[in-house]
C-alpha cells in the first residue's frame, strides 16, 4: 500500500531540500556530508538483479521518510516565521490598532528619569 513513487522523484526532492538547507550558508551542497552519503547509498543500491528487492524498498522508504522530515521541518519553520514569529506588538502599534495615538509629552512623565 506504500505509495512511495519512484526513487528518482525521492532523489530529486532530497537534492532540492539539501539545496535549500545550504543556500543560506553559502557553501555548495555537494560538499556536505549528507549529499555524499546519499549519493553513495543511492548508487550502491540501485543495481540489483532481483525484481522485488526488499532491501531496496527499505532504503527507498528511509529516503522518502528523510525527505518528508526535511520538507516538513522547512515548511513548519516557514509557517512559524510568517504567522507566529513576530513577537508582541509594541505599545504604539497596539494603540494604533484601535485608532489611538500615544501622547507626546515633551517634558517626559514626572516620575521618569
Amino acid at each position, binding site marked *: 500500500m506504500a505509495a512511495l513513487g519512484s526513487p528518482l522523484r525521492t532523489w530529486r526532492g532530497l537534492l532540492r531540500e539539501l539545496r535549500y538547507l545550504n543556500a543560506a550558508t553559502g557553501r555548495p551542497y555537494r560538499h*556536505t556530508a549528507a549529499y555524499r*552519503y546519499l549519493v553513495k547509498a543511492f548508487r550502491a543500491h540501485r543495481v540489483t538483479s532481483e525484481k522485488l528487492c526488499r532491501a531496496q524498498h527499505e532504503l527507498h522508504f528511509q529516503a522518502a521518510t528523510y525527505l*518528508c522530515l526535511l520538507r516538513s521541518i522547512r515548511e513548519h519553520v516557514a509557517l512559524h516565521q*510568517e504567522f507566529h514569529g513576530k513577537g508582541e506588538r509594541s505599545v504604539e502599534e497596539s494603540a494604533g490598532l484601535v485608532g489611538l495615538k500615544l501622547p507626546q509629552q515633551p517634558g517626559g512623565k514626572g516620575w521618569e528619569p
Partner: protein
Amino acid sequence: MAAPREAEDAGGRSRAVVLPGPRAMWRSCLRLRGGGRHLLNCPRGGLTASRGPVPKPPAHARAYAPPAAERKRFYQNVSITQGEAGFEINLDHRKLRTPQAKLFTVPSEALAVAVATEWDSQQDTIKTYTMHLTTLCNTSLDNPTQRDKDQLIWAAAKFLDTDTVACSPLVLWVTDGPTLVSSGQTSSSASSLRLGSLAGGVEEPETLVELQRNEWDPVIGWAERRYGVKIGSSTSIMGPSIPARTREVLVSHLASYNTWALQGIEFVVSQLKSMVLTLGLIDLHLTVEQAVLLSRLEEAFQIQKWGNVEWAHDYELQDLRARTAAGALFVHLCSESSAVKHKLPQ
C-alpha cells in the same frame, strides 16, 4: 539565596536575576511548544549541560517563563568522526554532548549524518525544536525518565485501548443533522485530502463514518493479517476491547526491538495516537504522509468541508509530519544492520 526562587514566582520579565545554568536551560524548555510531555522525555538542552544531575522544574512553575537568550550558532563546521562507541559529531573542534554531558554517540552512520545535517542547518540561532533526531538521540542516551524496555513497551501498548483507527465516532443526532464527536486526534489541522490514492479511487464518501470505514478498515485488516491477531473496531465510547492474546503478540513483537528503537516507537505512537499506524510505519506498509493523514482523518474531513486555516491546520500538520518522520527514521536507523553482498566477484 532565595533570589533565584523568587524569580520564578513573579512575572519575571523585568527582573534581572542571574539564573544558574541548568535552570536557564529548563526555562527555555518550558518556553517551547509541546509542553510538559516533551519536558519529561526529551530535554532540549544545547551544550550548556551542567556537570551535575539536571534538576526537574518545580511543580508550580508557570508555563510562561521569561525568554532566555537564544543560543547563537557558535560553530562554523559540523563533522562526523568515529569513536569506539560509535559515531560522534564535532562542532568545529568540540565534541557534541547530550544535556547530561554524556558524549553524543550514535551506532549508525546514517543517523550521524542526519544529526550533523540538523546542526548544520541552523542559521544564526539554534532552534532546538527543529532538531527532532538530535532530541531523540539525547533521550536515548540520557534516558532522563529512566525507563527500561518494559516500561517503554507498556507505555506504547497503552495506546492500543484507544487506538485511533479502531475507534469509530459517536454520532449524535441533533435537530438539524448529525454532529460528529470523534476520539483520536482532537487538534484540528489537515492537508489536502488525497483520499483517491489511498482508497483506490473510491468516490468521496458522504459521511465521516463511511470515510473512516473506507480508510481505517484496510489498515486494521492489514495489521490483523500481518500479526495474526484480532483488533477489530468499535463504536462504543470505551473503544475496542483488545483480547489478551493480541496484546501479548504485539508486546512480544515490540520486545524484539532494542531500547533505542523503542524510544522512537513510543515517540511515534504518542504522536499518532495509534499503535496500528505506528506498526504500519515501521513495517513499511504506510508512508509518513499516509500515516499522518489517517491519524488526522477527522480533521481532514472537517477541513475539506469548512476550509483550511493555514496558521493552525498546516502548522500542526507540518509539525506532526516532522515528528513522525523523525521517529520513524530513528526506529529504522536504530534497528537496521546493513551488509553488502556482492554477487559478482569484484
